[in-house]
């Protein structure tokens, strides 16, 4: 799971794609029509993630009732994909197409209700861990081929990891590199990359047995989740064109690139050498996909609503229904049938700078004071999302709803409780500098925030920051802001991916994500301890406890919302459902209706 686009895109995503009005959580057949089971159909409160078995990993993917092969699905989007080379893929948007082209050792098998299982994709299962979760071994399925018909081997899988060291690859994830070298941020120093003929010692392959073994420097019980990231997809050693691979990668998934005009269009056609029997995840009903870029969000939604010509076969790849259209979409019964919705991965919150706001009571007072309801109203009301109450988001394994500060009962803010705490701390009238990206939505929320702070006895100072450089500014450790708008999406649904980058003392620094600069011993230790609990369900419980304790005893951030997005699709599209990992349309389940 990945963050949407980092930096500015998350800053503007609420305005651009946030949804509004009405109770989103509609029931029944909101998704498809004519008996087509469809995701987003039920109340969506986060993906339930479990780890699947070898049987779950065996293809083909379960048939979708009513679906048939053939036709073309048209994907509309404002922007082209920024990368196609899997090792350079991190942003969720790029992953939406990567799901059709690239395959990793593991992947998520998603059912019609949005529940997902981690299963083997290239691998026969989710891997065997040994040696205290330091050694992970995967066996490749049989019959795996590249788009030219050549065999996809363990060498190709290994190559996908080793390529990460190439100097031209800077965009991808680095979890595996760190784990494989044990050198933390200096992982590049440990290996020069595959292009001079050397291989990583920490990856061992056996061609005959089709196995690949990772020898990690540290215990990583959730390493098989890490491997589902497209940054770790396989790349054919013999067809690696290095820098140029980004423009024309070789497909292992059900589709391959037929044509691509940057920023304009991309045409995908069937990869004949993809064998559905090797793939338990992807359905691949359409004969092809045609992506059309440069269609701005509102225009795209209007086209899908109108469903004329090719647009009837259209989906919005990534952008949800914007606030301007949500009313129309949800109140028109015919249209509403053509929607699905889901919660974005991750949490929106406000960092409290604990180096500046040192008094716990003041931080707690801030949480009490915060006007969640008014803020959500600006985003568009209940359909725009659910209130967040802690750091973890609902799709994290082990997530437990807690409400330490009574925010669900008093979402409009509790100035009395806040004032009382401030008085106790002797800080009545304390100045609070609130920083946020200078864009229309946050310029509206700042007003209700300012009012709430005043009502609670603070002296607010409002500080809008240039939105394209917002994160760069708040990620300076010597910044002069007390409370900072922010959001974080985990890379896979275990709590480590949220708590560690946001709250580990090691993650404090310029350009790093522990913006609250929380450095508490028991949190740091708790992260280390929980990270090595082998069973993910067990680990989940420990993380949930840590999550609650952080809110109670440190209060380093003000949780705001888990945001919801609505999608609309053309009237001849079937099987459209929410992709809980990448917050997008799950393309490989769509089909063309008769």
């Amino acid at each position, binding site marked *: 799971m990945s963050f949407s686009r980092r930096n500015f895109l998350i800053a503007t995503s609420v305005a651009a794609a946030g949804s509004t009005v009405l109770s989103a959580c509609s029931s029944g057949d909101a998704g498809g029509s004519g008996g087509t089971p469809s995701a987003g159909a039920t109340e969506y409160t986060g993906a339930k993630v479990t780890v699947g078995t070898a049987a779950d990993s065996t293809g083909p993917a379960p048939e979708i009732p009513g679906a048939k092969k053939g036709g073309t699905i048209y994907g509309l989007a404002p922007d082209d994909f920024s990368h196609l080379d899997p090792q350079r893929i*991190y942003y969720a948007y790029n992953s939406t197409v990567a799901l059709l082209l690239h395959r990793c050792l593991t992947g998520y098998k998603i059912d019609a209700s949005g529940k997902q299982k981690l299963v083997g994709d290239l691998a026969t299962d989710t891997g065997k861990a040994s040696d205290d979760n330091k050694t992970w071994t995967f066996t490749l399925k049989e019959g795996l081929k590249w788009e030219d018909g050549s065999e996809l081997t363990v060498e190709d899988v290994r190559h996908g990891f080793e390529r990460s060291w190439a100097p031209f690859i800077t965009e991808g*994830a680095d979890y595996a590199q760190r784990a494989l070298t044990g050198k933390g941020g200096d992982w590049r120093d440990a290996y020069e990359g595959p292009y001079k003929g050397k291989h990583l010692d920490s990856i061992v392959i056996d061609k005959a047995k089709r196995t690949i073994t990772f020898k990690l420097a540290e215990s990583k019980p959730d390493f098989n989740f890490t491997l589902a990231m497209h940054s770790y997809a396989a790349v054919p050693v013999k067809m690696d064109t290095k820098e140029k691979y980004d423009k024309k990668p070789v497909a292992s998934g059900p589709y391959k690139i037929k044509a691509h005009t940057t920023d304009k269009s991309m045409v995908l056609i069937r990869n004949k050498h993809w064998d559905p029997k090797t793939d338990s995840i992807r359905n691949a009903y359409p004969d092809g996909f045609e992506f059309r870029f440069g269609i701005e969000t509102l225009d795209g939604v209007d086209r899908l609503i109108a469903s004329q010509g090719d647009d009837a076969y259209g989906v919005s790849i990534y952008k949800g229904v914007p606030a301007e259209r949500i009313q129309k979409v949800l109140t028109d019964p015919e249209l509403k049938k053509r929607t699905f919705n889901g919660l974005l991965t991750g949490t929106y919150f406000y960092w409290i700078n604990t180096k500046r706001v040192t008094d716990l009571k003041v931080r707690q007072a801030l949480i009490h004071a915060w006007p969640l309801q008014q803020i959500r109203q600006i985003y568009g009301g209940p359909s725009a999302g659910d209130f967040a109450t802690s750091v973890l988001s609902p799709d994290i394994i082990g997530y437990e709803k807690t409400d330490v500060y009574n925010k669900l009962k008093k979402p409009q803010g509790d100035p009395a409780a806040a004032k009382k705490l401030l008085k106790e701390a002797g800080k009545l009238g304390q100045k609070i500098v609130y920083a946020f990206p200078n864009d229309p939505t946050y310029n509206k929320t700042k007003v209700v925030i300012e009012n709430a702070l005043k009502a609670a006895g603070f002296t607010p100072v409002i500080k809008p920051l240039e939105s394209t*450089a917002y994160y760069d500014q708040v990620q300076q450790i010597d910044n002069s802001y007390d409370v900072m708008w922010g959001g974080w999406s985990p890379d896979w649904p275990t709590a480590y991916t949220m708590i560690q980058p946001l709250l580990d003392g090691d993650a404090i620094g310029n*350009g790093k994500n522990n913006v609250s600069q929380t450095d508490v011993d028991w949190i740091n230790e708790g992260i280390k301890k929980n990270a090595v609990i082998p069973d993910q369900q067990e680990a989940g419980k420990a993380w949930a406890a840590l999550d609650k304790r952080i809110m109670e005893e440190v209060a380093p951030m003000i949780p705001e919302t888990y945001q919801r997005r609505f999608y609309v699709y053309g009237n001849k599209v079937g099987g459209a459902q929410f992709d809980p990992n990448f917050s997008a349309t799950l393309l490989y389940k769509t089909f063309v209706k008769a």
Partner: protein
Amino acid sequence: MFRFLVRRILGAAVILLIISALVFVLFYAAPRDPARIACGKVCTPETLELVRKNLAISDPLPVQYWEWLKGLFVGRDYSSFGHCNAPCLGYSFQSREPVLDTILDRFPTTISLSLGAAVVFLTFGVGTGMLAAVKQGKALDKIASSASLIASSMQIYVVGVFATYLLVDQLHLLDRASYTPFTDNPGKWFSGLLVPWLVLSLIFTANYTRMTRSQMVESLSQDYVRTARAKGLSSRTVFFRFAWRGAMGPIVTIFGLDLGVLLGGAIITESTFSLQGLGMLSVKAVQNNDLPMLLGVVLVAAGAIVVFNIIVDTVYALIDPRVRLA
């Protein structure tokens, strides 16, 4: 004339140079780091340095600017992109395509949009303005004047969406906005741009109506117009050969400047209709911290304005013999 052109073109070059330097400085004055785009979510200083090298932004600012300038004239070699022939505007940080290619690819969209709209708004704007001037004070004049006032207060993104909804989605009268190269299919080129042309024209038409009306009214009250009538010339001749000739100068001036600006990218129109022209390119370049693309687009946009300034001055001199080119 020749000296005039040489002088103005040299002046234009200096202006563009200053603008490019300004963009460079302003871009880096903002607290943002384009390298962060291509650096993963967990961005280490080492990786960041690597990205800077790949994007050719690791040198100090003046050196970067010099390299960029040099690239314009002699081409440039990039470690990650390879050689880029002169005139080299660099590679986009975002799409990693050559900036010049991208701009050349988008320019026809903007040119088609601007020129097509210009034909519409000139025809209607000047036409109704003239009519209003002739019918000064009469019902037609009042209708034209108030209609143009209303039209000029409309917003493209509102009118555009409404026009698409009504004319395309509901009534199926016109085609949805899209760009097809003229050389591919002139019919589709025309039908795809018709709605944007009309919508973009709406606002401009209003301006030109008002401007033409007031210029014509003023021109019609000129002594030489009276003289022309005293000579026995017909009202039609007087109107077009004398009054219009006098009103043309200011209109041509504004038109030239408008066209220059439009050719730099009609940002709102392009985004309303999802037309991928220079306007959208510049918006996205800003959003993506894409310095080379931003520089390229700004240069082209500024170039269009500067060139049209020269054209305006030349045309003005053709219209009005009192103006000398020097």
